[in-house]
Protein backbone atom coordinates (compact mmCIF):
# COMPACT_ATOMS: atom_id res chain seq x y z
CA UNK A 1 0.00 0.00 0.00
CA UNK A 2 2.83 2.36 0.92
CA UNK A 3 4.60 1.50 -2.35
CA UNK A 4 1.44 2.32 -4.27
CA UNK A 5 1.16 5.67 -2.49
CA UNK A 6 4.78 6.36 -3.35
CA UNK A 7 4.27 5.56 -7.04
CA UNK A 8 1.11 7.71 -7.20
CA UNK A 9 3.00 10.50 -5.42
CA UNK A 10 5.83 10.36 -7.98
CA UNK A 11 3.40 10.35 -10.92
CA UNK A 12 1.68 13.37 -9.39
CA UNK A 13 5.04 15.06 -8.87
CA UNK A 14 6.10 14.48 -12.46
CA UNK A 15 2.76 15.78 -13.77
CA UNK A 16 3.11 18.85 -11.55
CA UNK A 17 6.60 19.44 -12.91
CA UNK A 18 5.19 19.21 -16.44
CA UNK A 19 2.36 21.64 -15.65
CA UNK A 20 4.77 24.14 -14.07
CA UNK A 21 7.13 23.82 -17.02
CA UNK A 22 4.27 24.30 -19.48
CA UNK A 23 3.56 27.61 -17.76
CA UNK A 24 6.92 28.91 -19.04
CA UNK A 25 6.49 27.85 -22.69
CA UNK A 26 6.23 31.50 -23.77
CA UNK A 27 9.76 32.10 -22.46
CA UNK A 28 11.25 29.56 -24.89
CA UNK A 29 12.09 32.04 -27.68
CA UNK A 30 14.12 34.00 -25.12
CA UNK A 31 16.05 30.83 -24.28
CA UNK A 32 17.09 30.01 -27.82
CA UNK A 33 20.74 29.57 -26.79
CA UNK A 34 19.88 27.01 -24.13
CA UNK A 35 17.53 25.21 -26.54
CA UNK A 36 20.24 24.95 -29.21
CA UNK A 37 22.78 23.78 -26.61
CA UNK A 38 20.41 21.01 -25.53
CA UNK A 39 19.66 20.07 -29.16
CA UNK A 40 23.40 19.69 -29.65
CA UNK A 41 23.81 17.58 -26.51
CA UNK A 42 20.75 15.41 -27.11
CA UNK A 43 20.78 15.20 -30.89
CA UNK A 44 24.20 15.75 -32.38
CA UNK A 45 26.25 13.94 -29.75
CA UNK A 46 23.87 10.94 -29.83
CA UNK A 47 24.06 10.62 -33.60
CA UNK A 48 27.12 8.30 -33.91
CA UNK A 49 25.81 5.76 -31.42
CA UNK A 50 22.29 5.87 -32.89
CA UNK A 51 23.59 5.16 -36.39
CA UNK A 52 25.89 2.32 -35.26
CA UNK A 53 23.28 0.69 -33.04
CA UNK A 54 20.39 0.84 -35.49
CA UNK A 55 22.59 -0.22 -38.42
CA UNK A 56 23.51 -3.42 -36.61
CA UNK A 57 19.97 -4.00 -35.34
CA UNK A 58 18.76 -3.87 -38.95
CA UNK A 59 21.57 -6.22 -39.93
CA UNK A 60 20.85 -8.74 -37.17
CA UNK A 61 17.12 -8.60 -37.92
CA UNK A 62 17.81 -9.38 -41.59
CA UNK A 63 20.22 -12.16 -40.62
CA UNK A 64 17.85 -13.85 -38.18
CA UNK A 65 14.75 -13.48 -40.33
CA UNK A 66 16.66 -14.39 -43.52
CA UNK A 67 17.57 -17.86 -42.29
CA UNK A 68 14.06 -18.52 -40.99
CA UNK A 69 12.25 -17.17 -44.04
CA UNK A 70 14.50 -19.12 -46.37
CA UNK A 71 12.86 -22.29 -44.97
CA UNK A 72 9.43 -21.01 -46.00
CA UNK A 73 10.58 -19.71 -49.35
CA UNK A 74 9.64 -16.20 -48.26
CA UNK A 75 12.99 -14.51 -48.30
CA UNK A 76 11.77 -11.93 -50.82
CA UNK A 77 9.82 -10.41 -47.95
CA UNK A 78 12.86 -9.76 -45.76
CA UNK A 79 12.84 -6.12 -46.85
CA UNK A 80 9.20 -5.79 -45.77
CA UNK A 81 9.91 -7.39 -42.41
CA UNK A 82 13.01 -5.34 -41.64
CA UNK A 83 11.42 -2.15 -42.99
CA UNK A 84 8.21 -2.37 -41.00
CA UNK A 85 9.93 -3.67 -37.84
CA UNK A 86 12.36 -0.78 -37.86
CA UNK A 87 9.69 1.84 -38.55
CA UNK A 88 6.96 0.63 -36.24
CA UNK A 89 8.89 -0.85 -33.36
CA UNK A 90 12.64 -1.21 -33.25
CA UNK A 91 13.55 2.26 -34.48
CA UNK A 92 11.53 4.24 -31.91
CA UNK A 93 12.09 1.80 -29.04
CA UNK A 94 15.83 1.32 -29.55
CA UNK A 95 16.48 5.03 -30.01
CA UNK A 96 14.41 5.76 -26.89
CA UNK A 97 16.36 3.15 -24.89
CA UNK A 98 19.57 4.68 -26.11
CA UNK A 99 18.40 8.16 -25.19
CA UNK A 100 17.40 6.92 -21.74
CA UNK A 101 20.84 5.41 -21.19
CA UNK A 102 22.88 8.20 -22.68
CA UNK A 103 20.92 11.44 -22.38
CA UNK A 104 18.54 10.54 -19.53
CA UNK A 105 21.37 9.46 -17.26
CA UNK A 106 23.32 12.63 -18.04
CA UNK A 107 20.28 14.83 -17.32
CA UNK A 108 19.53 13.02 -14.05
CA UNK A 109 23.18 13.23 -12.96
CA UNK A 110 23.49 16.93 -13.81
CA UNK A 111 20.26 17.99 -12.14
CA UNK A 112 20.83 15.72 -9.12
CA UNK A 113 24.28 17.19 -8.66
CA UNK A 114 22.86 20.73 -9.00
CA UNK A 115 20.28 19.85 -6.36
CA UNK A 116 22.73 18.24 -3.96
CA UNK A 117 25.25 21.08 -4.29
CA UNK A 118 22.47 23.63 -3.71
CA UNK A 119 22.64 25.18 -7.18
CA UNK A 120 18.89 24.63 -7.54
CA UNK A 121 18.34 26.32 -4.15
CA UNK A 122 20.51 29.19 -5.37
CA UNK A 123 18.24 29.55 -8.41
CA UNK A 124 15.22 29.54 -6.12
CA UNK A 125 16.63 32.31 -3.93
CA UNK A 126 17.17 34.33 -7.12
CA UNK A 127 13.54 33.65 -8.09
CA UNK A 128 14.67 31.93 -11.27
CA UNK A 129 12.44 28.85 -11.64
CA UNK A 130 14.39 25.67 -12.32
CA UNK A 131 11.51 24.51 -14.53
CA UNK A 132 12.08 27.47 -16.84
CA UNK A 133 15.81 27.28 -17.39
CA UNK A 134 16.58 23.62 -16.64
CA UNK A 135 13.53 21.58 -17.68
CA UNK A 136 11.88 23.53 -20.52
CA UNK A 137 14.90 23.71 -22.88
CA UNK A 138 15.53 19.98 -22.40
CA UNK A 139 11.91 19.01 -23.10
CA UNK A 140 11.78 21.26 -26.15
CA UNK A 141 15.08 19.85 -27.42
CA UNK A 142 13.99 16.23 -27.07
CA UNK A 143 10.76 17.00 -28.97
CA UNK A 144 12.82 18.55 -31.75
CA UNK A 145 15.55 15.91 -31.85
CA UNK A 146 13.71 12.64 -31.25
CA UNK A 147 12.01 12.44 -34.69
CA UNK A 148 15.29 13.35 -36.39
CA UNK A 149 17.27 10.70 -34.51
CA UNK A 150 14.56 8.08 -35.02
CA UNK A 151 14.32 8.78 -38.73
CA UNK A 152 18.09 8.50 -39.10
CA UNK A 153 18.01 5.32 -37.00
CA UNK A 154 15.31 3.79 -39.15
CA UNK A 155 17.17 4.52 -42.38
CA UNK A 156 20.41 3.12 -40.92
CA UNK A 157 18.53 -0.01 -39.86
CA UNK A 158 17.17 -0.42 -43.39
CA UNK A 159 20.63 -0.11 -44.89
CA UNK A 160 22.09 -2.49 -42.29
CA UNK A 161 19.50 -5.06 -43.35
CA UNK A 162 20.15 -4.41 -47.04
CA UNK A 163 23.89 -4.91 -46.62
CA UNK A 164 23.44 -8.23 -44.81
CA UNK A 165 20.92 -9.46 -47.39
CA UNK A 166 23.25 -8.54 -50.24
CA UNK A 167 26.43 -10.04 -48.84
CA UNK A 168 25.26 -13.07 -46.85
CA UNK A 169 25.46 -16.09 -49.11
CA UNK A 170 22.57 -18.01 -47.56
CA UNK A 171 20.23 -15.04 -47.90
CA UNK A 172 21.41 -13.44 -51.12
CA UNK A 173 18.66 -10.90 -51.67
CA UNK A 174 19.93 -8.00 -53.72
CA UNK A 175 19.38 -4.43 -52.60
CA UNK A 176 16.89 -3.60 -55.31
CA UNK A 177 14.59 -6.51 -54.38
CA UNK A 178 15.08 -5.71 -50.70
CA UNK A 179 14.04 -2.05 -51.06
CA UNK A 180 11.21 -2.89 -53.49
CA UNK A 181 9.75 -5.23 -50.87
CA UNK A 182 10.40 -2.66 -48.18
CA UNK A 183 8.47 0.05 -50.03
CA UNK A 184 5.66 -2.23 -51.17
CA UNK A 185 3.94 -2.55 -47.81
CA UNK A 186 5.15 0.65 -46.18
CA UNK A 187 2.55 3.37 -45.63
CA UNK A 188 3.04 6.95 -44.54
CA UNK A 189 1.00 6.14 -41.44
CA UNK A 190 3.61 3.56 -40.38
CA UNK A 191 6.33 6.19 -40.43
CA UNK A 192 4.19 8.81 -38.69
CA UNK A 193 3.13 6.31 -36.00
CA UNK A 194 6.77 5.37 -35.43
CA UNK A 195 7.79 9.00 -35.07
CA UNK A 196 4.88 9.69 -32.74
CA UNK A 197 5.94 6.78 -30.54
CA UNK A 198 9.48 8.11 -30.47
CA UNK A 199 8.22 11.57 -29.44
CA UNK A 200 6.19 10.07 -26.58
CA UNK A 201 9.10 7.93 -25.35
CA UNK A 202 11.65 10.72 -25.57
CA UNK A 203 9.40 13.22 -23.83
CA UNK A 204 8.62 10.81 -20.99
CA UNK A 205 12.29 9.86 -20.57
CA UNK A 206 13.42 13.49 -20.26
CA UNK A 207 10.51 14.43 -17.97
CA UNK A 208 11.18 11.47 -15.66
CA UNK A 209 14.92 12.10 -15.57
CA UNK A 210 14.39 15.82 -14.83
CA UNK A 211 11.90 14.96 -12.08
CA UNK A 212 14.15 12.39 -10.43
CA UNK A 213 17.20 14.64 -10.73
CA UNK A 214 15.46 17.65 -9.21
CA UNK A 215 14.06 15.55 -6.36
CA UNK A 216 17.41 14.17 -5.25
CA UNK A 217 18.17 14.68 -1.58
CA UNK A 218 21.30 13.82 0.34
CA UNK A 219 24.89 13.66 -0.84
CA UNK A 220 27.02 12.36 -3.71
CA UNK A 221 25.87 8.80 -3.10
CA UNK A 222 22.30 9.82 -3.85
CA UNK A 223 23.37 11.30 -7.19
CA UNK A 224 24.40 7.82 -8.34
CA UNK A 225 21.21 6.33 -6.92
CA UNK A 226 19.13 8.94 -8.78
CA UNK A 227 20.84 8.16 -12.08
CA UNK A 228 20.15 4.44 -11.67
CA UNK A 229 16.55 5.16 -10.67
CA UNK A 230 16.06 7.51 -13.61
CA UNK A 231 17.41 5.06 -16.19
CA UNK A 232 15.57 2.03 -14.80
CA UNK A 233 12.28 3.95 -14.52
CA UNK A 234 12.72 5.28 -18.06
CA UNK A 235 13.37 1.82 -19.49
CA UNK A 236 10.34 0.36 -17.75
CA UNK A 237 8.16 3.25 -18.90
CA UNK A 238 9.37 2.94 -22.50
CA UNK A 239 8.38 -0.72 -22.66
CA UNK A 240 5.07 -0.25 -20.81
CA UNK A 241 4.13 2.78 -22.90
CA UNK A 242 5.16 0.92 -26.05
CA UNK A 243 2.32 -1.53 -25.52
CA UNK A 244 -0.30 1.13 -24.84
CA UNK A 245 0.78 3.52 -27.59
CA UNK A 246 1.02 0.68 -30.12
CA UNK A 247 -2.46 -0.51 -29.15
CA UNK A 248 -3.83 3.02 -29.45
CA UNK A 249 -2.27 3.52 -32.88
CA UNK A 250 -3.34 0.19 -34.40
Amino acid sequence: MNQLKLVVGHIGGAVLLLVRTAGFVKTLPGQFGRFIEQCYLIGYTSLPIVTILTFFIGGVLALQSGYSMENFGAKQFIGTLVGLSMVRELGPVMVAILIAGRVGSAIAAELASMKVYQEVDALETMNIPAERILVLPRLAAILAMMPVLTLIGIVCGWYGGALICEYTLLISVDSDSYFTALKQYMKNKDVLDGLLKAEVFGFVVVLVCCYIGLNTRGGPREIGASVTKAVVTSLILILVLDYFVTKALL
Partner: protein
Amino acid sequence: MAADYTATPFVGRTFGVTVSNLTKKFGNVTVLNNVSLEVRPGEIFCIMGPSGSGKSVLLKHIAGLERATSGEVRIGEHDAADPETRTKVHLALVFQAGALFSSLSVYDNLALYPREHKLCGEAGIRERVMHALSILSLEKAAQKFPSELSGGMKKRVAIARALVMEPQLLLYDEPTSELDPVMGATISEIIATLREQTAVTSIVVTHDRDLALSIGDRVAIIMDGRIRATGKAEEFRAPKDPAIANFLTPVIDLKNPRFKQLENNNE
Protein backbone atom coordinates in the same frame (compact mmCIF):
# COMPACT_ATOMS: atom_id res chain seq x y z
CA MET B 1 13.07 48.45 -22.35
CA ALA B 2 15.40 47.78 -19.45
CA ALA B 3 17.34 50.81 -18.29
CA ASP B 4 21.09 50.61 -18.17
CA TYR B 5 22.58 50.20 -14.75
CA THR B 6 24.66 52.92 -13.15
CA ALA B 7 27.06 51.71 -10.51
CA THR B 8 26.08 53.07 -7.11
CA PRO B 9 26.74 51.75 -3.64
CA PHE B 10 24.21 49.02 -2.85
CA VAL B 11 22.25 51.12 -0.40
CA GLY B 12 18.54 50.64 -0.07
CA ARG B 13 15.85 50.01 2.42
CA THR B 14 16.78 47.32 4.92
CA PHE B 15 14.48 44.80 6.50
CA GLY B 16 14.21 43.20 9.90
CA VAL B 17 13.30 39.54 10.34
CA THR B 18 10.84 38.12 12.87
CA VAL B 19 10.74 34.40 13.52
CA SER B 20 7.67 33.41 15.56
CA ASN B 21 7.18 30.00 17.20
CA LEU B 22 8.83 28.22 14.27
CA THR B 23 8.71 24.43 14.39
CA LYS B 24 10.04 22.14 11.68
CA LYS B 25 9.70 18.38 11.67
CA PHE B 26 11.22 15.98 9.16
CA GLY B 27 9.11 12.86 9.70
CA ASN B 28 9.31 12.14 13.43
CA VAL B 29 12.44 14.25 13.94
CA THR B 30 11.90 17.75 15.29
CA VAL B 31 14.69 19.90 13.90
CA LEU B 32 13.38 23.29 15.07
CA ASN B 33 11.27 23.49 18.20
CA ASN B 34 9.23 26.63 18.77
CA VAL B 35 12.01 29.00 17.71
CA SER B 36 11.37 32.72 18.08
CA LEU B 37 13.81 35.54 17.44
CA GLU B 38 13.99 39.03 16.03
CA VAL B 39 16.65 40.50 13.76
CA ARG B 40 16.71 44.29 13.61
CA PRO B 41 17.12 46.16 10.33
CA GLY B 42 20.75 46.83 9.45
CA GLU B 43 22.35 44.65 12.11
CA ILE B 44 24.67 41.66 11.79
CA PHE B 45 22.92 38.85 13.60
CA CYS B 46 24.91 35.65 14.12
CA ILE B 47 23.25 32.32 14.76
CA MET B 48 25.62 29.86 16.39
CA GLY B 49 25.21 26.29 17.47
CA PRO B 50 26.78 22.86 17.31
CA SER B 51 26.48 20.71 14.18
CA GLY B 52 22.95 19.40 13.66
CA SER B 53 21.38 21.98 15.96
CA GLY B 54 19.13 23.34 13.20
CA LYS B 55 21.00 26.54 12.25
CA SER B 56 20.99 25.95 8.49
CA VAL B 57 17.36 24.78 8.52
CA LEU B 58 16.42 28.01 10.29
CA LEU B 59 18.30 29.99 7.64
CA LYS B 60 16.48 28.09 4.88
CA HIS B 61 13.16 29.07 6.47
CA ILE B 62 14.22 32.71 6.47
CA ALA B 63 15.20 32.36 2.81
CA GLY B 64 11.83 30.74 2.05
CA LEU B 65 13.44 27.49 0.91
CA GLU B 66 11.67 25.35 3.53
CA ARG B 67 8.06 25.26 4.66
CA ALA B 68 7.47 25.41 8.40
CA THR B 69 5.51 22.70 10.19
CA SER B 70 4.10 25.49 12.34
CA GLY B 71 4.94 29.10 13.13
CA GLU B 72 6.07 31.74 10.67
CA VAL B 73 8.94 33.91 9.48
CA ARG B 74 8.31 37.51 8.43
CA ILE B 75 10.74 39.76 6.62
CA GLY B 76 9.56 43.25 7.32
CA GLU B 77 5.84 42.89 6.80
CA HIS B 78 6.24 40.12 4.22
CA ASP B 79 5.76 36.38 4.72
CA ALA B 80 9.11 34.64 4.04
CA ALA B 81 7.31 31.55 2.70
CA ASP B 82 5.92 33.58 -0.22
CA PRO B 83 8.39 33.36 -3.15
CA GLU B 84 7.53 36.95 -4.13
CA THR B 85 9.01 38.13 -0.83
CA ARG B 86 12.53 37.32 -2.01
CA THR B 87 12.14 39.76 -4.88
CA LYS B 88 10.39 42.41 -2.79
CA VAL B 89 13.06 42.47 -0.10
CA HIS B 90 16.05 41.72 -2.39
CA LEU B 91 17.04 38.69 -0.35
CA ALA B 92 20.33 36.98 -1.18
CA LEU B 93 21.80 33.85 0.34
CA VAL B 94 25.49 32.95 0.35
CA PHE B 95 25.59 29.16 0.49
CA GLN B 96 28.08 27.19 2.54
CA ALA B 97 29.82 25.67 -0.46
CA GLY B 98 29.13 28.66 -2.70
CA ALA B 99 26.55 26.84 -4.87
CA LEU B 100 28.11 28.41 -7.94
CA PHE B 101 26.81 27.13 -11.28
CA SER B 102 29.61 24.86 -12.40
CA SER B 103 28.76 25.13 -16.09
CA LEU B 104 29.00 28.94 -16.07
CA SER B 105 32.02 31.21 -15.78
CA VAL B 106 32.34 33.51 -12.77
CA TYR B 107 31.09 36.40 -14.94
CA ASP B 108 28.06 34.44 -16.12
CA ASN B 109 27.34 33.26 -12.58
CA LEU B 110 27.03 36.88 -11.55
CA ALA B 111 25.22 37.96 -14.71
CA LEU B 112 22.54 35.28 -14.41
CA TYR B 113 20.29 37.20 -12.02
CA PRO B 114 20.15 40.52 -13.90
CA ARG B 115 19.89 38.70 -17.24
CA GLU B 116 17.03 36.43 -16.20
CA HIS B 117 15.14 39.28 -14.58
CA LYS B 118 15.97 41.62 -17.49
CA LEU B 119 17.12 44.30 -15.06
CA CYS B 120 19.26 46.12 -17.62
CA GLY B 121 20.95 45.77 -20.98
CA GLU B 122 24.16 43.81 -21.52
CA ALA B 123 26.31 46.92 -20.94
CA GLY B 124 24.52 47.58 -17.67
CA ILE B 125 24.92 43.96 -16.63
CA ARG B 126 28.64 44.16 -17.34
CA GLU B 127 28.97 47.27 -15.21
CA ARG B 128 26.97 45.73 -12.41
CA VAL B 129 28.94 42.47 -12.47
CA MET B 130 32.35 44.14 -12.67
CA HIS B 131 31.40 46.49 -9.83
CA ALA B 132 30.51 43.52 -7.60
CA LEU B 133 33.69 41.68 -8.63
CA SER B 134 35.81 44.75 -7.89
CA ILE B 135 34.39 45.01 -4.35
CA LEU B 136 35.65 41.47 -3.72
CA SER B 137 38.90 42.01 -5.74
CA LEU B 138 37.90 39.31 -8.19
CA GLU B 139 38.15 41.15 -11.53
CA LYS B 140 40.85 38.79 -12.81
CA ALA B 141 38.72 35.72 -12.07
CA ALA B 142 35.80 36.84 -14.23
CA GLN B 143 36.43 34.36 -17.04
CA LYS B 144 37.37 31.44 -14.80
CA PHE B 145 35.06 28.55 -14.04
CA PRO B 146 34.19 27.55 -10.45
CA SER B 147 36.28 24.38 -10.74
CA GLU B 148 39.37 26.57 -11.24
CA LEU B 149 38.81 28.54 -8.01
CA SER B 150 40.10 27.93 -4.49
CA GLY B 151 37.67 27.54 -1.58
CA GLY B 152 38.18 31.13 -0.46
CA MET B 153 37.65 32.49 -3.98
CA LYS B 154 34.46 30.46 -4.35
CA LYS B 155 33.10 32.05 -1.18
CA ARG B 156 34.05 35.51 -2.43
CA VAL B 157 32.41 34.84 -5.80
CA ALA B 158 29.30 33.65 -3.96
CA ILE B 159 29.27 36.92 -2.00
CA ALA B 160 29.81 38.89 -5.22
CA ARG B 161 26.89 37.02 -6.82
CA ALA B 162 24.75 38.01 -3.86
CA LEU B 163 25.87 41.65 -4.22
CA VAL B 164 24.74 41.76 -7.85
CA MET B 165 21.24 41.26 -6.49
CA GLU B 166 21.65 44.51 -4.52
CA PRO B 167 20.44 42.76 -1.37
CA GLN B 168 18.63 44.40 1.49
CA LEU B 169 18.75 41.17 3.47
CA LEU B 170 21.90 39.10 3.14
CA LEU B 171 22.07 35.59 4.58
CA TYR B 172 25.34 33.72 5.04
CA ASP B 173 25.49 29.97 5.67
CA GLU B 174 28.80 29.05 7.33
CA PRO B 175 30.81 31.69 5.42
CA THR B 176 34.16 30.72 6.97
CA SER B 177 33.85 26.93 7.03
CA GLU B 178 36.63 24.97 5.27
CA LEU B 179 38.76 28.13 5.03
CA ASP B 180 42.18 28.77 6.54
CA PRO B 181 42.26 31.36 9.38
CA VAL B 182 43.58 34.15 7.15
CA MET B 183 40.87 33.66 4.53
CA GLY B 184 38.31 33.27 7.32
CA ALA B 185 39.36 36.64 8.72
CA THR B 186 39.15 38.18 5.24
CA ILE B 187 35.60 36.92 4.77
CA SER B 188 34.66 38.27 8.24
CA GLU B 189 36.05 41.64 7.25
CA ILE B 190 34.11 41.58 3.98
CA ILE B 191 30.84 40.86 5.81
CA ALA B 192 31.46 43.71 8.27
CA THR B 193 32.53 46.14 5.52
CA LEU B 194 29.49 45.36 3.38
CA ARG B 195 27.18 46.11 6.27
CA GLU B 196 29.10 49.32 6.95
CA GLN B 197 28.85 50.45 3.33
CA THR B 198 25.34 49.31 2.50
CA ALA B 199 23.55 49.01 5.86
CA VAL B 200 22.32 45.62 4.68
CA THR B 201 20.72 43.40 7.33
CA SER B 202 23.00 40.37 7.63
CA ILE B 203 22.20 37.03 9.20
CA VAL B 204 25.23 34.80 9.60
CA VAL B 205 24.88 31.15 10.50
CA THR B 206 28.17 29.86 11.82
CA HIS B 207 29.90 27.67 14.34
CA ASP B 208 32.95 29.97 14.16
CA ARG B 209 33.11 31.65 17.58
CA ASP B 210 35.69 34.24 16.51
CA LEU B 211 33.62 35.30 13.50
CA ALA B 212 30.40 35.64 15.48
CA LEU B 213 31.93 37.52 18.40
CA SER B 214 34.04 39.83 16.24
CA ILE B 215 31.47 40.98 13.67
CA GLY B 216 28.09 40.14 15.23
CA ASP B 217 26.02 42.93 16.78
CA ARG B 218 23.92 40.27 18.41
CA VAL B 219 24.24 36.52 18.68
CA ALA B 220 21.73 33.70 19.18
CA ILE B 221 22.80 30.27 20.33
CA ILE B 222 20.69 27.40 19.06
CA MET B 223 20.94 23.95 20.61
CA ASP B 224 18.81 20.89 19.84
CA GLY B 225 16.47 22.98 17.73
CA ARG B 226 15.76 25.54 20.48
CA ILE B 227 17.11 29.03 21.04
CA ARG B 228 19.23 28.72 24.15
CA ALA B 229 20.22 32.38 24.47
CA THR B 230 20.14 35.66 22.55
CA GLY B 231 22.14 38.76 23.37
CA LYS B 232 24.86 41.19 22.42
CA ALA B 233 28.04 39.59 21.12
CA GLU B 234 30.11 40.75 24.11
CA GLU B 235 27.75 38.93 26.50
CA PHE B 236 29.00 35.66 25.04
CA ARG B 237 32.67 36.29 25.75
CA ALA B 238 32.22 34.88 29.27
CA PRO B 239 28.91 33.03 29.21
CA LYS B 240 27.36 31.90 32.48
CA ASP B 241 25.30 29.08 31.02
CA PRO B 242 27.57 25.98 31.30
CA ALA B 243 26.18 24.45 28.07
CA ILE B 244 26.95 27.62 26.12
CA ALA B 245 30.34 27.98 27.80
CA ASN B 246 31.16 24.40 26.90
CA PHE B 247 30.12 25.02 23.30
CA LEU B 248 32.01 28.30 22.91
CA THR B 249 35.13 27.23 24.79
CA PRO B 250 35.19 23.45 24.81
CA VAL B 251 37.55 21.82 27.30
CA ILE B 252 39.24 18.73 25.98
CA ASP B 253 39.52 16.22 28.81
CA LEU B 254 41.76 13.35 27.81
CA LYS B 255 40.52 11.36 30.81
CA ASN B 256 37.07 11.37 29.29
CA PRO B 257 35.97 7.71 28.73
CA ARG B 258 35.31 8.55 25.05
CA PHE B 259 38.99 9.28 24.46
CA LYS B 260 39.96 6.08 26.30
CA GLN B 261 37.71 4.18 23.94
CA LEU B 262 39.31 5.88 20.92
CA GLU B 263 42.76 5.05 22.26
CA ASN B 264 41.77 1.39 22.64
CA ASN B 265 40.36 1.33 19.13
CA ASN B 266 43.62 2.72 17.75
CA GLU B 267 45.63 0.05 19.48
